[in-house]
């Protein structure tokens, strides 16, 4: 599904040049669940942002479903994102002014799904995430765990082929964290590819493969059974 080769990314300020990614190469197959680990500043979030087409790369190749996407313009990227990729963030990133239902509905609006169909699909996914009873609440009225479940619901409502999760349990206590990890595992079992950045060895054990990074390079891969 994803094949990156010699990926490079450099951050420049007036005085310093930092190589965030240094010729990173790896491959992700459809249906895989991958955890990316490493110390702060090793480049794992940068890698995730590039995989999600949120950030530009300075060199190398990025094939998504056998199509080179490295040179995509903003419109094509937005299009690819909304149809194929769901995001889960550490800080949930829900829109405060929109209710639970409206937050989850948002990706469907952007992909032009009709109103009746939207309602059906949002309710279905809220039901699955066991957050249906909170559908009319606003994000501030929910606990962290509930907010992350809404965020996951929003990520999956469009049935994306790939979910990118950036420390999805970072702001949660262990029981809420486990719940979210279970949700991701279930989704993976139903066929969704998942790439997750995490600091937690515990969370990483939910994945099939751990990619370890250091100073902008992949240094080791552990395959879990």
């Amino acid at each position: 599904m994803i094949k990156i080769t010699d990926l490079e990314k450099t951050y420049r300020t007036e005085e310093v040049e930092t190589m965030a990614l240094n010729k990173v190469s790896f491959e992700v197959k459809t249906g895989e669940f991958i955890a990316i680990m490493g110390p702060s500043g090793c480049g794992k979030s940068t890698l995730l942002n590039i995989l999600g087409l949120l950030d530009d790369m300075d060199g190398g190749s990025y094939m998504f479903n056998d199509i080179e996407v490295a040179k995509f313009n903003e419109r094509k990227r937005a299009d690819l994102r909304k149809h194929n990729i769901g995001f889960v963030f550490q800080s949930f990133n829900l829109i405060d002014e929109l209710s639970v239902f409206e937050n989850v509905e948002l990706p469907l609006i952007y992909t032009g799904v009709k109103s009746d169909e939207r309602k059906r699909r949002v309710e279905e996914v809220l039901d699955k995430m066991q957050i249906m009873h909170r559908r009319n609440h606003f994000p501030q009225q929910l606990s962290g765990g509930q907010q992350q479940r809404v965020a996951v619901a929003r990520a999956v409502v469009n049935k994306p082929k790939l979910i990118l999760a950036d420390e999805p349990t970072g702001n949660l206590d262990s029981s809420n964290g486990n719940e979210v990890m279970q949700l991701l595992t279930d989704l993976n079992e139903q066929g969704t590819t998942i790439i997750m950045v995490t600091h937690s060895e515990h969370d990483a054990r939910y994945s099939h493969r751990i990619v370890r990074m250091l100073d902008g390079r992949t240094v080791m891969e552990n395959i879990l059974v």
Partner: protein
Amino acid sequence: MLKNYLISAWRNLLKNRVFSTINIVGLAIGIASFILIGNYVLDELSYDRWNPQAENIYRVDADIIMGGSELNLAVSSDPMGATLKKDYPQVKEYVRLYGSSGSKLIKKGDEFINEPRLVHADSTLLRVFPFEVIAGDALHPLDGPNKVILSETGVKKYFGTLPYQDIIGKTLETDDKNKLYTVTAIIKDVPHNTHFYVDLFFSMQNVDYEWGSFLSNNFNTYILLEPGTDPIVFQKNFIGFINKYILPQVQQFMPMKSMDEFTAAGNKLVYFLYPLTDIHLHSNRVAELDTNGNIQYVYIFSAVALFILLIACVNFMNLSTARSSSRAREVGVRKVLGTERKDLIIQFLTESTLMAGIATGLGIVAAIALLPYFNDLAAKSISIPELFSKKWILIILMLPLLVGILAGLYPAFYLSAFQPIAVLKGRLSGTLNKSAFRSVLVVFQFATSILLIIAAIVVFNQLKYIQNASIGFNKEQVLILNGTNALGTQVDAFKNEISGLNGVIASTYTGYLPVSNSSRNDNTFFKDATPDINRGLNMQVWTIDEDYITLLGMEIIQGRNFSKEYGTDSSAVILNESAVKLLNYQQNALNEKVYGSSRTEQNKFVPYHVVGVVKDFNFESLRQKVGPLCFFLGKSSWSTSFKVKSADVQNLIAQIETKWKSMANGAPFSYRFLDQSFDDMYRAEQRVGKIAMTFSILAIFIACLGLFGLATYIAEQRTKEIGIRKVLGAEITGIIGLLSKDFIKLVCIAALIAFPLGWFLMNRWLQEFAFRINIAWWVFLVAGLSAILIALFTVSFQAIKAALMNPVKSLRTE
């Protein structure tokens, strides 16, 4: 999608109450101002355009220079119209309006009332000005003498509620020698946007006039040209016209071979066509039928309306971008979810349009509520239905969209440009507080406000200068009685009786007065017994009595006043300084002679000896230079003035009125004070001053609303910094200074921009006055300082609040 945008917009509006209130209130004020001033401007621009033939109607005007004195006339001679129609097929029709006879007394019931709104008109009136006839003869209502057309207002005034059909054929009795006029037609009121305001049109034949002279210009003459006639080309015909008709009449009293000779002596006689639709806003000539508007003020007010609206839009731009950090995350999330930038732009524009829509609603309500005050301020009579007339309602309905886009476009582009990873990682927050463009916008707001303050101060200063200027006569405590000629032979007796009243110091006949809208008379004089155009001078000729100069406090600088002691004063003149200068008398003007038409015998040329020179006094508005003028001794008794000195003026007036009623045979009692008439000449300027003041206050208020909003957000964002500074020992004053400094710097820059601009623009306005102030340095100081103080007050409110906050609390909130 739109629903989602609206939901999000509405919730954002409710969530940020301070922000929304500031924007909506500011925009509502801006929109109300825009609606009101817009109506004023449209109304001014609409003058005479109701006339379907407006594009082909022209007034025949004349520019005359003779002996150095210049006359710009809105009138031409009585045979002008008919001769043009006879000689040139391009002239389809003409009509003359004659307003020089002034008001008439018209009988209503048992008493005569003074009617100023009248003219005499040719029978062709309705062919040039197609007023709507609602009763009577629609085709030839003024064919023949002793006929009158009434407007609905005129009908109401003289016939009350009588049915229109019953009024046709009835007569109106007047005080002129024709006495009775038959009502032949009733028309709808002359549209208010016509350059004259008339309720009664009398037959032209009843004007008491020496007909046939091409040399006296007393008729406002309008010609209707055939469609397609080029007025510029047509005007060239006037050269031939002058040679054919005017030259022979001039030659009768002046040896002159051709008009070239006349021009070679530095004189000028030019006729030209003034477009009907330009009269109201561009024409300010002698013998206008009514006081016209001024295109300059239309420009000024249009600019003010736009600026106020812009200032309000700037608030939206500034506050939206200043608090963008609170929207940044939303932008990031939406972008991650696949929104394109254009969708985000539409979303933000929806928000600004929604806000502008609410503001438009409020603005409309405010405009309706403030309409009476505005009408008063601008001297208009705009009604509520007119406020929302067909052509205007479209613009008003478009306002939310226009204002929404104007205000929202910059924030929409600014906000939608955020990079999702940057905002989601919180990497933007530091850079959001400072924006060069936002500073530019604040500078724009305050520069405009300061400019308006400067304008208001300069206008008021010029008005004060006019009111206190040394005008060469004393306008205080002079009571003028109008229409005293109605007393007939009793006028002297009346004057003597009033002079005997306690509180009356002196009296004089004042048919001619040194204020506008008073009688005027001019004639040409020569330095020699045989008229030589090189040695002629056209000047004002006023007939006054022996008491006039003393009562009005004028100063004789050479010679003497008229006096009963000299039997020869009937052939004496007193000149003003300008006349002496133009006549080129060296040192001593006394004992010189000027030659002119005899006052008693027709076609006779006689000498007048100069017995005195009066110091120049301003007999027209201070916009104009003082022209040449001479006084003759005589009795102009259609107005009589009294110098009064009484603690109880009202009681004195009541006594005079009682005396009047016993002697005046039902003629109406009407009086005014000279200083009031003097002030009346500057009504337009007073209005401009008041409007500039009102709207500069509004502009500053809106700008300060914005500043208040900005200060609020900046203080909020710097809460943590302030807490840390306080923990480290910062004083409260230091923190207030820290938060206010940046804003005050911007207002200072605005002042530096506004000063030269204000100086330039206001000096241009002052050029309209022959007598004017120099703009003093303190005007700028006052304007700049008041803007800075108001801004400081606005900002410090938030700064003090932030500075007084307990640092423990402010650190904990972070």
